């Protein structure tokens, strides 16, 4: 077990670094970015807000775009390079380019073209000595937010959203398991019954429609139409109200009170739970059906074991083994949040933050969320592997 764990931790370390590096590269290679935005704004601002080379250079510095990608990555990962080594070594080592060079290409047919090539002013270790740098994510420092909460720690931003995501995802996952497992078992045991058909139909609807459709329908039905009909209604979004509101038959609800927060919790949790149940119940059903046809189940029945015991003790334990694989991603999902659902219900969680950060080129925030997700996914898979040995005696980690 110890050897297994050590081996897995080493693997996890390398997988995490490679995943982080690839995410980092793809993020920076994606079209657009702050410089494009600046140039876009510049298109019409050649008056008092005009931007010149030094302004562009400052923005490049702020986003660390003047560092070569590997150094940019290493600064993010371990906070190095931050200046000459031991204060003196490698002061003139080039780690980036402050001002790109330009080359005029004169073609044989007389055409002339100016392209960026080479480096006019190199960025050396000595020149970055005064630059602000994080300690690196390996030391728990995700740096500063670049655009969303400018110049304030990414961790502050994440911690402000984490409780909302954990509560939303935790509740919906827990409810999903509590509801989906019994439904799946009952559907399998009563295969082709009316209940099974009904659940199958609902599951197909839940699996085939995207979450934002359910979200919008839920808002329309339980919020807007219910309110217009003078019925008790659910607030359409937010984690807590901005001001007190009145619900028919229930009276005034105080903004930020437990009732207010609870009522706002219902729709997003309901939608997420419904979608999870749709997928998971089918999974359990299929797994149970397979197990119920196994010889050992038949043997148990032949031995006269009560049907309930056959299902719970003999069938269910084995049927849950594949389900553990599915749950490996739960840990990451708990942190990652529900991207679409959070946006639709204006839930101030990490999923919404991720979308926002992507759209506004806050590279540090995006990378922090991706990195933590990768780590949690790794841990989730490890836990799943360990759980296998507990639920399935045939599996030995050694």
């Amino acid at each position: 077990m110890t050897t297994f764990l050590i081996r897995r931790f080493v693997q996890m370390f390398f997988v995490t670094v490679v995943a982080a590096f690839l995410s980092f590269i793809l993020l920076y290679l994606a079209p657009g970015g702050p410089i494009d935005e600046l140039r876009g704004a510049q298109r019409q601002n050649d008056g008092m807000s005009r931007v010149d080379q030094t302004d562009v250079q400052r923005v490049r510095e702020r986003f660390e775009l003047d560092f070569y990608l590997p150094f940019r990555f290493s600064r993010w990962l371990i906070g190095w390079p931050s200046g000459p080594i031991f204060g003196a070594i490698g002061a003139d080592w080039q780690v980036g380019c402050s001002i790109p060079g330009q080359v005029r290409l004169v073609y044989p047919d007389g055409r002339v073209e100016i392209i960026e090539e080479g480096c006019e002013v190199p960025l050396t270790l000595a020149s970055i000595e005064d630059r602000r740098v994080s300690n690196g994510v390996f030391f728990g420092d995700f740096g500063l937010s670049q655009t969303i909460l400018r110049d304030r720690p990414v961790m502050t931003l994440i911690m402000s959203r984490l409780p909302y995501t954990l509560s939303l995802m935790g509740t919906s996952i827990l409810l999903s398991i509590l509801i989906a497992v019994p439904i799946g078992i009952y559907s399998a045991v009563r295969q082709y019954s009316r209940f099974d058909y009904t659940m199958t139909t609902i599951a197909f609807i839940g699996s085939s429609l995207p979450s934002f459709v359910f979200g919008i329908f839920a808002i329309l039905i339980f919020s807007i139409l219910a309110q217009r009909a003078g019925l008790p209604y659910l607030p359409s979004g937010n984690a807590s109200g901005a001001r007190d509101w009145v619900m028919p038959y229930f009276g005034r609800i105080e903004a930020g009170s437990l009732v207010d927060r609870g009522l706002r919790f219902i729709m997003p949790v309901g939608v997420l739970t419904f979608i999870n149940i749709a997928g998971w119940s089918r999974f359990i059903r299929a797994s149970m059906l397979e197990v119920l046809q196994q010889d050992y189940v038949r043997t148990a029945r032949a031995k006269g074991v009560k049907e309930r015991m056959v299902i719970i003790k003999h069938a269910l334990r084995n049927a849950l083994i594949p389900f553990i694989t599915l749950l490996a991603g739960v840990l990451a999902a708990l942190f990652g949040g529900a991207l679409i659902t959070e946006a639709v219900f204006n839930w101030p969680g990490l999923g919404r933050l991720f979308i926002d950060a992507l759209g506004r080129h806050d590279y540090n925030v995006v990378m922090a969320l991706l990195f933590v997700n990768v780590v949690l996914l790794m841990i989730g898979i490890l836990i799943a592997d360990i759980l296998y040995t507990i639920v399935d005696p045939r599996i030995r980690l050694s």
Partner: protein
Amino acid sequence: MGLLSRRAAAFALLALILPILAACGGTPPAAEPVVRETVVVVQTAEPIVVTATPDPDQVVEPTTEGEPADEADEPAAAAPSGAFSTPHPILSDVRVRHAIAYCSNRPELIESVYPFLSDEQKEELLMDTFLPQGHWALATENITTYPFDLERGQELLEEAGWTGEPVRSNEDGDVLALNFTTTNAQFRQTWGAVFIQQMAACGIQVIPTYAPGSWWFGSTTGLARREFELGAFAWVGQTDPAGRTLYACNQIPLPENNWEGQNYMGWCNERASIAITAANNTLDRDERIRQYAIVQEEFTRDMVSLPLFNRLEAYAASNNLVNFRADPTEYYTANAFEWELSDGGDTVVIGLTQEPATLWTLIESAAVQRVVSFLLGVPATTSYTYDFQPFGLTQLSTIENGAAVNEEVEVSEGDTVWNTDGEAVELAPGVEVVTADGETVVYESGTLTMMQLSVTDTWVEGLTWEDGEPVKQADFELAYKIDCDPDSGAVTLAVCRSMADVEFHDDVSYTVTFYPGVQWPTYFSGLLTFYPSHLVLSDGRNLADVPASEWSSLPEVVESPLSSGPYTIESWDKGQRMTLRANPNYFQGEPAVSTIIVQFVADTNQAVAQLLTGEIDVLGSETLGAGTEVEMVIEAGEAGTIQAFVVPSSTWEHVDMNLYRR
């Protein structure tokens, strides 16, 4: 097997990494040998603007409205050399361009994207030049207009030698087909489809490419590289069209000038070019109007860019909100101090789709930031209806009212002047400057006469911080020191770099003297602001002693700044909302609405839902956008559920026609 799979994995990894590394750097080898020369001057900012003064005696031949003059003539264009010197076989013919304009039924295009508008409202969105209706510089005479006229369009095409149907062709058998490139935004695809049909009715085949915005507006792709024949996108109109040098001859992006400039059409009309540069080199508004009129006249006559329509901007407010003002060129919170609630309520909730990154206006220019900052500060001026009005200033600091002086000064070698690149440099041989006569000259020796602008801003008496401390001279001095420090994080320092001297007179006024050659068109709209120099930070330091590099991370600056505006920050729950309370020390008096809550709502649908359920009171155009939600809001307005405001936006759609091929 194990070894094989490892090799396969290694190959797969290489296959993944190599293209990424290739994309990271390196230029593909040229097909032919090329000569490489290092460019000495790195110019990524605005290209050199050649300034010239048009001959005042120049006779302008008027063009009858609706009747383009001598359509067979080519535009008065200087033939370009180098890349993009091959005239486009179709679009270089002005008759074809006019035909495209006549064949465009712009009301129908508007109908396709805004079917819910009345005819009157649609009429308000129509544009004939590059300036919107109601703009102070909009020309009304000698403008060629192109009302929808299918017959006229077809006639022009016949004249140009394009005959036959359904798709016209010339006698060489070339088909009248044009590529039409724009973004894949649903909005553009919708009107683009109608535009294609309209062209087809005239016998012009239009082949659409709906490209991702990242490609179309990328810095090295699409529009920036002039990779289009007909290209559609939008410009944002401004109160002062200061940046409209984009139609000048020297603004044509070419490989030879490292693709600098935004004259994507390659349009070089000497008369227009001279006029537009002249309009940007004078501070006399009447003269500017005259010069812009010339540009608009040529612009519409040559028809190189077809203005289509202003986009629609919608605002929504709850029925009980009084004095809400929707305007295309000013933020709706600019008059929040005048808001009232007719039902006696005390709270207004504003919905914003994005959270401000900071409350420090210097380092953030997003619309959402401005919406909030108007609640916390006193702007020098407002800019309603495409013009300026004094607000924090006692008056606009114009030359006409004596608050500014623009006088001739003599400069000689060694003096600091403002060159044509927009930089403060020492005058030396080879430096290019604009003289007092408006001529662009390269300095050689001796003295030159240049214009020097001095502006005295006078702020209103009684400006007070929320803690009751009056605004004083030290506050203006602090703002000048911080705003002009490159470490502050400000995106642009253009104005700071152009200031030769700032003299602070008292608690409300100061004089800024610019370097000779600086002629900012909006010089009168307030040049400095003020920061609370008396503020003591939580760590015991005085704000005035904190270096500029730290300001962007100070909570007292970026999260809970001391307010001088109508409201003060009470709390900011990240990702959720800001709560602001009425400022009793506001110089206009305490606002009637005691609380404003700014609620962050990421999704527009959700924002509208909250508006309709009464959770939100105000949604601005930055939140409503231009999607289907606008229609929903207008319908709700018509039903009386809310107040809906529809105004022509300052953003306008147009089709550029690329006159040359590479």
